[in-house]
């Protein structure tokens, strides 16, 4: 059985004048359907770059990425949009809700682009909002909600399209610890219901809530295994590195 996500020798190289940055430097990752994976690493290690590629927001410089058995790494803009629309749900650190749309309209957006009719759109949006406990805020504008509530709206928006993978880049980065725990519990619950979740964080205490941890450093995978292995949370000695640089 092939993996849901299959990154095969992925490189992402940024050229800045005469120097080049290897944000991803030969990454191989396989994620099965139903997994809850945390990608961790220090700032600049390539976590967001990896997520952008997994999320079809960006294309690798080199290597092959297969999502659900289909090679998406060479797809055109609109084809990738279709994939994002049908298979991927994003949760961002800054929520990224559209301020001029109501909560419900925000949640409906991906359905709108999928061409779902108005009544069905509304029904599914309300269902997603119910799941995050915000059905009563459907008509509010995003700026009338707290940070935690806004993040829950963005989770509802990610869920509304019924995606194969939910990608969360530092979803708790802007939240206090109590709300962070709520959001994490919610992601765990979604995972228990069968959703595949890829979570990006630099915080070990959050990463251990996932089943599996992938640690990146300088664009390479330096650990890939269960989150209860002691090695999973060991920070590589960053002092050496910084001296070396």
């Amino acid at each position, binding site marked *: 059985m092939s993996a849901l996500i299959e990154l095969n020798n992925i490189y992402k190289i940024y050229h800045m004048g005469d120097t080049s940055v290897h944000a991803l430097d030969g990454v191989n990752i396989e994620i099965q359907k139903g997994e809850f994976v945390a990608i961790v690493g220090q700032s600049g290690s390539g976590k967001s770059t990896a997520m952008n590629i997994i999320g079809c927001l960006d294309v690798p410089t080199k290597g092959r990425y297969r999502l659900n058995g289909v090679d998406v790494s060479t797809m055109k803009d609109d084809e990738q949009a279709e994939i994002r629309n049908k298979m991927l749900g994003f949760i*961002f650190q800054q929520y*990224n809700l559209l301020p001029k749309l109501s909560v419900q309209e925000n949640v409906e957006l991906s359905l709108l682009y999928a061409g779902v009719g108005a009544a069905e759109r509304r029904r599914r949006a309300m269902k997603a909002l119910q799941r995050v406990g915000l059905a009563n805020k459907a008509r509010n504008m995003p700026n009338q909600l707290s940070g935690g509530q806004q993040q829950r709206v963005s989770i509802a928006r990610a869920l509304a399209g019924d995606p194969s993978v939910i990608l969360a880049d530092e979803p708790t980065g802007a939240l206090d610890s109590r709300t962070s725990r709520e959001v994490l519990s919610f992601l765990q619950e979604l995972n228990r219901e069968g959703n595949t979740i890829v979570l990006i964080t630099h915080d070990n205490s959050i990463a251990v809530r996932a089943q599996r941890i992938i640690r990146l450093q300088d664009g390479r995978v330096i650990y890939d295994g269960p989150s209860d292995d002691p090695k999973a949370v060991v920070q590589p000695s960053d002092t050496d590195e910084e001296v070396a640089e």
Partner: protein
Amino acid sequence: MGIEQNFRLAIKSLMSSKVRALLTMLGIIIGVAAVIVITGLGSGMQRMMNEQFEQLGANRIQVNIFGRGGGSRIVDTDDMYQLMEKNPDYLTGVTPYISVRTLVRYGTEEFKRTNVIGVSEDFADMASVFGETLKEGRFIQYLDAARKQNVCVIGSYINETAFNGNGLGQTITLSGTHYRIVGVLEASGDLVEGGGNDYIYIPYTNACTLNGTSEVNLFMFSCPGEDTAAIAKKIISDYLYSVYLSEDYYYVVTSAEMITMMNMMISVMMTVLVAIAAISLLVGGIGIMNIMLVSVSERTREIGIRKSLGAKRRDIRLQFVIEAGTTSAVGGVIGIVLGALVTTVASPILTGMMSGMGGSGSFNASPTAGAVAIAFGVSVGIGVLFGYLPANKAAKLNPIDALRYE
């Protein structure tokens, strides 16, 4: 997909920054308003011309003579009367229209700018062509001209200023000769010295004597009907050609031709003015393009979010094209309302001015439905056209760059 949401968003963003929206739309507003005003006034003018045409009748022929040509002969009023008598089926009346250089005096008062014109008895029939109607008394008659009587018909300006409105039966002096006032004309518009109400008509025979020549520059014929006017015109032209041996020295035109020419001139004028107004629409379009480009870069992050949720290029393009189209459509509607308002206000003012210049017919300008429809269509079209470039720019944004944009 999502057209009504895009439309609602566009209205919302217009309302949220009204001053900016107004500035954006200014070019469109001015352009559309100008088109509405110009076409409104133009069609009002055309209507007025046509009314005057009806008044004047379709059966007039005007003859202008510019000089003597190769021959040494001139055509005088008697020649024209003879031509008329030879062609009674086609020509039924003729009057010369002779400007006289003379000094008009009443007592010690001098009227230096009064227009003195020599006419025949047939002028009575054709007075409306010249915008004149009799108020009291009579016009110049056959015997006045035949016997060179010293009689005149005066305009309301002299009647009011010299005679306090009681000029009929009094006398006035032209080049030292007393003329008895046998008729007074109706006033039309303001009384201005040398203006449309400051005319004196005398028998053409007297006019020739005062001028010292029987040369005439302008004749007006009447013919029995519109259908024979073309034949009548040919008769006159042929005769004039036989005298002058060249077409360069006279010009014969029927009233139908005149009105066609007038209408054409108004149309040309309107087209030119509308073309000028169209430049304003173009500038307006560029304004919209400019503000849309600003809007696209301001909303780069929004575009990134929409793309992350699966918006395709055409979805983003549609969103911004609708926004641009809505902006300019709203501008168009404001322009239409403004233009209609200006037309309505200007119409009576212009009516006053026209009658002051001696025009009769009533001038009634109102915006035409066609112009409104076209103006609206054009403004939407401009929005879409000039919105397309920025919209396309937005559509082509790379999702990840757009999302990262601060």
